[in-house]
């Protein structure tokens, strides 16, 4: 259960709302780099944290992210002409550079300097890995550029996708740290999904449906360990890192690529679910990359030409009751990503957490909310910068390992849970 005022505090992310201000302290994923694939390509609409924006890549390859609407008469610059180092409104020819600065007002004398007085609100947009990142906060509070491992390994070793999820960011993110649902909702996927199947660790998952949990605070967020019985009295540990505000990783299986997510608010009723796969030490195989493009693992299929999942609430997620009955899919929904999204969207745009009945195994979620609330309040009331902004907080990995009973995972797996250049993931 979460009190109404705290639920509102954590779920409202528009400008001026405390949680919105907190998201504005981070570099957040804004677009796939492929959405702006070449200089002077068509601009793209972007909505983040309740703000309607336009992204474009100018003639010199510089990325711009700014207010979607022309300062003159409010025309959407999605209709703009991306030409000669700027985006020109097709209505009266006003032109803006990649920072949002107006550089041409054709109807005014050039010598008047009128255009210098016009500037659209703009945000930096940088490419790290195959993602374009933005920082929507004050320039003086801008953190170092992101160095998440999935975004900094060579391109051949990583794959990212994004999908539109039609609910508040927090209920989507909470799925990423809710380890206890995996034994039920995703139980079919361990046997069949090409990006999960075949790992030795899967047998422990299948044999022990009642994991024991340990939640340990880290500097950047949490480590959530799920412990299952292994051979000879040993424990099979799967450890999920959560870095504030919304980065999580799925513990690895065998030599399969590692997976993870960001959940980024579009507005209070919608979010982007970013999903990535990478291998720290080798290129993804053609088969793995194809599986990701086909929607396996943490990815999904799309309505053609969009980032909306093929299975969505307008087609009841292509629910297959027969598959549910056969046990092919625990919920009757195909694919791990949409198994999560379908249930999270069914809660409604913003779930009413005053009605919840949490249990002790939900302590990962309880602790994440607690840390978010404290960080939001500290930022709002004292200007304290939240955790998760600095490089050392971002050098994390998930890990899976068999340990003896007396070994605390936090100490025994400290190196395993740290991103290390050129070192393979720790997995079972």
């Amino acid at each position, binding site marked *: 259960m979460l009190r109404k005022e705290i639920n509102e505090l954590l779920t409202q992310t528009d400008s001026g709302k405390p949680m919105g201000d907190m998201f504005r302290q981070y570099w957040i994923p804004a677009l796939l780099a492929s959405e702006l694939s070449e200089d002077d390509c068509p601009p793209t609409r972007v909505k983040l944290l309740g703000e309607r924006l336009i992204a474009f890549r100018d003639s010199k390859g510089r990325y711009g992210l700014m207010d979607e609407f022309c300062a003159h008469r409010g025309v959407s610059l999605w209709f703009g002409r991306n030409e000669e180092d700027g985006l020109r409104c097709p209505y009266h020819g006003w032109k803006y550079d990649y920072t949002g600065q107006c550089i041409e007002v054709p109807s005014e004398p050039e010598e008047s300097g009128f255009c210098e007085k016009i500037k659209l609100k703009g945000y930096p947009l940088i490419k790290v890995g195959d993602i374009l990142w933005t920082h929507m906060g004050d320039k003086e509070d801008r953190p170092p550029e992101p160095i998440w491992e999935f975004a900094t390994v060579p391109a051949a070793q990583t794959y990212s996708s994004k999908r539109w999820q*039609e609910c508040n960011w927090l209920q989507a993110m909470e799925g990423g740290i809710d380890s206890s649902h995996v034994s039920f909702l995703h139980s079919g996927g361990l046997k069949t999904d090409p990006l999960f199947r075949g790992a030795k660790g899967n047998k422990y998952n299948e044999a022990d449906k009642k994991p024991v949990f340990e*939640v340990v605070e880290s500097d950047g967020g949490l480590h959530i360990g799920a412990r299952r019985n292994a051979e000879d009295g040993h424990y099979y540990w799967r450890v999920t890192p959560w870095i504030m505000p919304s980065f999580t990783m799925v513990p690895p299986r065998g030599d399969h690529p590692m997976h993870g997510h960001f959940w980024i608010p579009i507005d209070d009723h919608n979010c982007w679910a970013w999903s990535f796969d990478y291998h720290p030490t080798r290129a993804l195989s053609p088969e793995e990359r194809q599986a990701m493009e086909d929607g396996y693992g943490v990815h999904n299929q799309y309505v053609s030409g969009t980032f909306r999942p*093929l299975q969505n609430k307008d087609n009841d997620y292509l629910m297959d009751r*027969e598959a549910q009955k056969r046990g092919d899919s625990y919920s009757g929904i*195909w694919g791990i990503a949409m198994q999560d999204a379908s249930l999270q969207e*069914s809660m409604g745009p913003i779930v009413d957490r005053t*009605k919840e009945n949490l*249990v002790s195994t939900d302590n990962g979620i309880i602790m994440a909310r*607690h840390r978010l609330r*404290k960080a939001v309040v500290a930022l709002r009331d004292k200007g304290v910068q939240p955790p998760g902004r600095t490089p050392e907080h971002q050098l994390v990995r998930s890990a899976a390992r068999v340990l003896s009973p007396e070994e605390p995972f936090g100490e025994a797996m400290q190196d395993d849970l740290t991103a290390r250049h050129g070192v393979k993931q720790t997995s079972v």
Partner: protein
Amino acid sequence: MPHDHDEMFEADNATRAGRGPVDHPTMLSSCAHAASAEEAKYRVQYPNSIVRTSRIFALDPPAAEAMYAVTEDPWENTHFLTLLADSTIASETPAQDIPLCHPDGTATNLNTELTDADVVVLLATRNSSEAAAEIIACECFKRKIMCAGLALRRASSPQSISQVVSSMRKFTRVLVVTEDDDYIPAMLTALRA
């Protein structure tokens, strides 16, 4: 799941074909309608759970100090308990002989406290009461009561907290390690204590 995206999408929206027999009428896009903000207004409003009976055991003086900071809050059916000072508890101590007391100093016993309990939380900052933790947790196990552990770092050394974690891990189904005493009321509120 077919992989011919557009074909499947069109076919599904048009006829819901290829999904086996539909044995009851289903409204197309029922999920879209049901998940809307508008529909949220029609959720049945009623208390969907009864008050839980929670028992919080502070196993050492610093843990008790952290616990006392929240005992005056308006909890439901929650008892906050400590071990009597200077008590000696061994693993063979019978459960009913563990010397417990309420914040006002009145004595009680484990059998009374665990009767009808739904949730038990053990608070510890050090490894001085492993035997008590084991006895309480074993009683919880026998009675099928969920037992959670909260290891408070406070001023404890890493080695000390590591010992607490190792010790409590044997007995609890959930273990949380935090340096923030404020997590106690946050967790109890979330669990509807």
